[in-house]
C-alpha cells in the first residue's frame, strides 16, 4: 500500500501539482476515454478510436495501459510525466508517435485479449512473443484508417 501511495504521489508530482488537478488529472487514472480526450492533443486519436473496430470493445487503457494494477499505475505515472511535460512545454515531436516501451505494452495487450485466437501463430516462434508484432499488420485496429 505504501508503495502504491508513493507511486500515486510520484504521478501527482510528475503531472505537476495543480496542473494535475486543473487538467482533470485524477481522471487520468480512470478508464474513461474522456480522460484522455481532456487533452485536445489526444483529439485525433480519440476521433480515430470512435471510428475503429474496437470502439465498442476496448477503451484507451485496455490497449495502452499494462493490465496489472501496479504496473498500470507505474506506467501511468511515467507517461503522465511525459504527457504533461510535452503538453506544457509544447516541445514534443509531431506527428505524435508511440514510444517503443508503450508499443510493447500495447502489443502485450492485444495478445491478452486475443490469446486464444492467435495462440498457434504466436507459438510457432518459440517464446519470443515480443517479436510477434500485431501492430505491424493491424495498425488500424485502434484508431481506424485515419489514426
Amino acid at each position: 500500500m505504501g508503495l502504491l501511495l508513493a507511486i500515486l504521489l510520484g504521478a501527482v508530482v510528475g503531472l505537476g501539482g495543480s496542473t494535475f488537478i486543473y487538467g482533470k488529472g485524477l481522471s487520468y487514472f480512470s478508464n474513461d476515454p474522456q480522460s484522455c480526450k481532456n487533452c485536445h492533443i489526444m483529439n485525433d486519436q480519440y476521433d480515430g478510436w470512435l471510428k475503429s473496430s474496437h470502439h465498442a470493445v476496448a477503451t484507451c487503457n485496455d490497449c495502452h495501459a499494462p493490465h496489472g494494477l501496479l504496473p498500470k499505475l507505474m506506467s501511468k505515472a511515467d507517461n503522465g510525466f511525459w504527457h504533461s511535460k510535452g503538453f506544457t512545454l509544447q516541445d514534443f515531436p509531431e506527428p505524435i508517435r508511440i514510444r517503443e516501451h508503450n508499443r510493447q505494452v500495447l502489443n502485450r495487450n492485444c495478445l491478452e485479449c486475443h490469446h486464444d485466437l492467435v495462440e498457434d501463430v504466436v507459438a510457432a516462434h518459440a517464446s519470443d512473443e515480443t517479436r510477434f508484432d500485431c501492430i505491424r499488420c493491424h495498425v488500424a485496429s485502434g484508431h481506424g484508417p485515419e489514426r
Partner: protein
Amino acid sequence: LRDNMSDRKAEAHTTVFKLTDLTEQTTDPAEWGKNFPRQYDSYRRTVDMERTRYGGSEADPGAIGAEDVHKTVSNIERDPRLKAMWNGYAFAIDFREDRGHAYMLHDQRETDRVLKKPQVGACLHCHASITVAYREAGIAAGAPGTLDEPLLSDNGQAQLMKGFPIISAMPYEEATKTVEHPVTCLDCHDPQSNQLRITRPGLLNGLIALANSTEPVPHLESVEKWRTGNREQPYDPNRLASRQELRSLVCAQCHVEYYCASKETLFFPWHNGLKVEQIEAVYDGHTFPDGSPFLDFKHKQSGAPAYKAQHPEFETWSQGVHARAGVSCADCHMPYIREGAMKVSDHHVRSPLLNDAKACQVCHRDSAEELVQRVHIIQDRTAALMSRALDAVVALINETEAAMAAGAADEQLAAARDFQKKAQWRVDFVNAENSMGFHAPQEAARILGEAIDYAQQGRLSLAMLGLPAAGAAKQVAAAK
C-alpha cells in the same frame, strides 16, 4: 503552467477574429494577414531558399537580377543536353530551378525568355494574382455587373471569362502592369467564407474538357459523378468538387502542362485524359486558329517539329498511387502544423523534404531518414533513366543534322524527325515535372522507357538510310 493551460483551452475555442473586411478586390496578402496572421507568416516564408538532392532551390552566386536578388541556378548550364534539346526555343536561352511562390512574378518579369523574346499576357495566368485584372478587363469589354459581386456569381464568372482572353492576348510588358502580387490568398480562397475555390479560367476550361472525355479519373470523384449525372451544365469544380479534391485543384490552376503563346489563348490539353500520350494526341490533332498545324517550335539543328512540356505535376500525380489513395498536393506540400492549440495549414509551400518529411509521417510510420531515402531511391532511378534518354535524344539530333549536311532530303528525314518529336516530348515531360519521378515513380519510368525507344528508333532510321557520307556524318556527330 496553470496559465498556460487555460490559455490553451481558450485558444481551442477561438475561431477567426474579423479584424478587417476582405473583399473580392483584396489582392494584398498583408490585409488578409490581419485576419489570419499564422497563415500569412508562413506564406511569407516562401522567400526562403534551400536545396534538396533534386528539388528545393539554390541561388546562383554569379547571377544577380532585379532588385539585387540572386537568380536561381540555371538548369540548362547544369545540363547542356537540355539546351541542345530545346535549340530554337526560348527555354534554350534561360531556364532556371524554380523556387518559392514569393518569387513567381519577379522571376517571370526578369527571365530572358521574356526579356529576349516577345511574350503575351497569358503568362500571367499563373504568375500573379490576376483575377481582379481579368474582371476589370471583362467589365470594360461589356461584361455585366460590378467588381463587388462575388467571383463565383454568374456576373463574376462572365467578367472573368470575358477578360481572360483579352489580357492573355496583350503584350507581356503591358499586361504585367495590370498586376501587383504573386499568387495570393484571393486566388485560392473565397474572401467571405475563406473556402477554397478555383479562380483560374485555364483550369475551369481544362476540367470541362477532361470531364467530357471518357478517361477514368478515379482520383477526381466529383468528375466521375458528374459524368453519370445530368450533364446539362458543364462540370464546375466550384459547385461540385469535394474539399479534398480542392486541396489539389487549387494547385492544378498552375502546376499543369499548358499551351500559351501568341497564336492562341492559353489552354490545358486534357481532352483525351491526363496521360502523356493522351496529351500528345491532342496536340497531334490540333491546328492553330490560323490553320497551321500545332507545334511549339521547330528544332533549329534537326528541323524537327517539337512540343515543349511544362510542369505537369498535376497530370503526373494523377497517375500515381497517392492520387488514387486520395492524397492531395496540400497534404504533402501544405501539411497541418500545430500553432498552440490550433492546427493550421503550412502556407510555406515547398519541398516536403525540407520539413523533415513531417508531412509524410502523418501517414507513414517511418523515420524521416527512411522516408527521405525512399524518395531518393525513386528519384535516383528516374534520374539515371532520364540521363539515358537525354543521351539518345541528343545523339538523334546531332545525327539528323549530320544527315542534313550529308545531303539527305526532307522525305528521308521525316521518320527521324517524327521520332525526335515523340522522344523529346516524353523525356521533357518527365524533366519538366518537378518531383524527379516521385509523384508517379513507375509511370515516370515507363515514359522514359518509351522516350529511349523512340529516340533510338530515330537514330536507326537515319543509319538505315545508308547515306554515302554517313561515315563523315557520324564523325561530325561524335565531335559535338
